[in-house]
């Protein structure tokens, strides 16, 4: 196990060389993967969303596919279609791009709700049903969806229930000055990606996920998670508080974070580290019609003393 952990640390380091100055986001993405969740990245085009997804797939030795969502994309374009095979005199299923370990769903809010929900159902069930036949998706199955800020023209905002299926939502943001400078001075990212050597194999991922789920959670920490979640429910600034499912997601993400940090137990710090990514997209502000901001989340944390 300690080799695997070392490999995990190497993965983060290697990814950090491709996506410069974004280590917290890389860690969050990895934690999301270890917690068997899906990731939503919300940011402007060109800040490295695709690169992050691609790099992770490459480093973990996983099969990668990318779906560019457009307004005319159909569910079959994602799941796949059955076509008539003249030689075999029968229908043959041509699996769609969703049959991959890491699926990058780019600009998911450009597609119609019908197409969006086809992907989101696949994410939830980890299987797809086409032409009456249910097909399991590969394991691991990790969706990284990106979305443009919803005020852009021609977008269909994801409904609440769909957002809930993403364990985390992160923002990449602009790189800082030094990181951008190295980016500009450095070589071609695509070329770097191609030369990237896997640090882990697909077979390693399952034991890692299992180990992450077993990180110890003390009663005192459960108290803290409950207090935190309870405060989101009492806060009049939000329409609803966090659901029990969100609380479970928070705990799973905190476990994965602690695991990446090479710890045997979850600390309040771990919960606080993943809290913005897990909670913000699940909390709707009463005013302004948007999701909770980083300030809101920080305020909740500061209002919740450790038990």
């Amino acid at each position, binding site marked *: 196990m300690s080799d695997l952990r070392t490999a995990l640390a190497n993965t983060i380091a290697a990814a950090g060389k491709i996506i410069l100055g974004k280590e917290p986001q890389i860690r969050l993405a990895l934690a999301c993967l270890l917690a068997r969740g899906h990731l939503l990245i919300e940011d402007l085009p060109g800040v490295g969303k695709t690169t992050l997804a691609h790099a992770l797939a490459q480093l973990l030795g996983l099969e990668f596919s990318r779906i560019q969502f457009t307004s005319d994309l159909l569910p079959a374009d994602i799941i796949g279609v059955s076509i008539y095979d003249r030689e075999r005199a029968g229908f043959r299923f041509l699996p769609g791009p969703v049959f991959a370990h890491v699926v990058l769903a780019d600009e998911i809010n450009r597609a119609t709700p019908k197409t969006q929900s086809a992907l989101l159902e696949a994410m939830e069930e980890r299987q797809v049903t086409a032409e009456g036949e249910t097909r399991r998706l590969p394991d691991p199955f990790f969706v990284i969806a990106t979305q443009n800020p919803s005020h852009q023209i021609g977008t269909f905002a994801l409904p609440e229930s769909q957002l809930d299926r993403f364990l985390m939502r992160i923002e990449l943001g602009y790189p800082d000055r030094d990181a951008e400078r190295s980016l500009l001075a450095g070589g071609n990212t695509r070329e770097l990606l191609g030369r990237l050597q896997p640090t882990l194999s697909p077979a390693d991922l399952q034991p890692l996920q299992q180990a992450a789920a077993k990180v110890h959670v003390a009663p005192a920490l459960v108290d803290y998670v409950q207090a935190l979640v309870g405060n989101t429910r009492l806060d*009049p600034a939000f329409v609803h508080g966090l659901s029990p499912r969100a609380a479970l997601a928070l705990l799973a993400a905190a476990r994965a974070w602690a695991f990446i940090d090479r710890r045997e137990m979850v600390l309040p710090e771990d919960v606080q580290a993943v809290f913005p990514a897990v909670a913000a997209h699940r909390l709707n502000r009463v005013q302004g019609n948007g999701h909770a901001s980083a300030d809101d989340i920080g305020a909740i944390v500061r209002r919740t003393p450790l038990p």
Partner: protein
Amino acid sequence: MRRTRPKPAVEPLERACVPWLLACAVATGAPHVEHLPLWLSALAAATVGLRAWLWFRERPLPPRWQLALLVVAATIGIYFQYRTLFGRDAGVALLVLFMALKPLEMHGRRDAVVLVMLGFFLLLTHYFYSQSIPTGLWLVTAATLETATLIRIFGGHQPLPSIVRYAGLLLLQAAPFMLVLFLLFPRITGPLWGLPQDAYGGTSGLPDTIAPGTISNLVPNGSIAFRVRFEGAPPDNTNLYWRGPVMDEFDGQRWRPAQLGRLDPATIEARGGTVTYETTMEPHNQRWLLALDAPQAIPEQAFVSARLQAVAFEPVRLRSRYTFASSLDYRAGLSESRALLNASLHLPSQGNPRARALAASWKVRHADAQGIVAEALQMFSREQFTYTLQPPLLGDDPVDAFLFETKQGFCEHYASAFVFLMRAAGVPARVVAGYQGGELNPVDGYLVVRQSDAHAWAEIWRDGYGWQRVDPTAATAPSRIERGIASALPESEALPVMARLKLDWLRQLSYRWDAVNNTWNQWVLGYNPERQREVLSRLGLEDIDWRGMTALLAVLCAAALLGITLWTLSQRPRLDPVQRAWSRFCARAARLGVRRHPWEGPLDYANRIAALRPELGEIAATAATAYAEARYGGQGNNAVERLRAATRKLPYQWRPA
């Protein structure tokens, strides 16, 4: 180590709170408009309106020096209006002024809270003026609004119904405390803190002198003088003479009580027809208590005067209850003092010659007083005398003018003319003012006597019979005595609506409303020491005075507080050894200048210590790791010991290197 105290930041006030606060200002201040000078009401309306406009337009508030100028000018105005800044009226005016100006200075949350608290205070002052049910309801509504505003200020945006519901819930939670305090708080007769002198102005009641017009001025006043509850059936209307001031000195225009020095109480010989009743007197700021003739048993705080009145030792300034027993058939003053009889014969040396001549002719014709009285009453009923509220003016010889020219008058004309005639004929006589009759409310069985029932009649003294009531009005307008004032006056004359209600359902409604008001008076406003004793004895607490009451209340409060404290303490989580060791570490580290935030995890805290006090970094890391293992880890092998050891290693005081 010196830490600078951070400047208290002005917590900003949400823009959406302003309408709430303005509504508070209006709700608490507006009812005072009734008794404020017009200029102050206008100023208050203008400032609140200006604030609303500034809010609507999102304009900045006026600078402080302008506000200061306004406050000083208006305070001076109030001083010139009332010639003082103290007392009820000036004090209320000042409070209203502050309430109206504070919105213009509403920058932060603190100002808003000041305004709300001022509002709560202003609410109380309404009780100086009115304690009626509508006032109570209005104040409850305003208190709910104030509470809701506080919730809005501190609770952020919420839907209106939920704010109001929460405020109502809070007030409801306070209701049991209010009830217990209302029932048990020691009642001291009279107001607890002594109202200012001007608090008793504006009460109406019988005048202490009578001239033509003084009683008829009262008649358009429909307000209630007192209420009576009889034990058993109320007596006949013709017996309901409620005695007020007795006047035996006449100066040619006015009747007033003669100043005769000390007189013995009237001697009363009861002959039957005793009625027992309880009157609830509205404050009239006079000492007479308006008992039925003739009082037999009177309350402790009163005595029977030489003129048969029940007189209180102190003016009636609060609504009060008195229990009387009166004998309707009586002989009073059989051996009346010379002084009083002489006063009852005295007339001015001149004036009213025709009346004197008439009386003299009667005196010649009749040997006894009875004949003279009969002669006078016959004159009133035989000749064309009219009973009216609007008699013509009478001039220098009012009795002559009334008897021989105008022949129109109200009860005071009849009574004073009659007494004049009697005296001129040598019969001792006097004018009595009071109330006659009253209206029985069928809903609660109380007899309601209004100011419009004010009346004046006469008394004559006969040897062997004592003082006897003669009502000359009855000779002219018998229905006034038998059925009340409305039936005796012509339709065209102004009377309070209540006295002449014809609509049956409206009458019913007004009876019911009055019964509700009476219950409120009897049980809420009239909850005095006696009533409290009654309630307490029902609770099994006999014979407890207000000192005992205070002690009991203090013990109860202490017990309740102790109970709450013990409960809270028992609810406090017991700190386990790990937590205790950690809080000790945190306390020690805080003394060294790095205080742990309540939400801060151990490792973050250790990192912060290391950043701020690098020399402590190692100790902090050890302690934090040990604590994290013990608190959040699966098994803590002697982690507590390591934590304690690390704590011991911390220096006691931090000295800069």
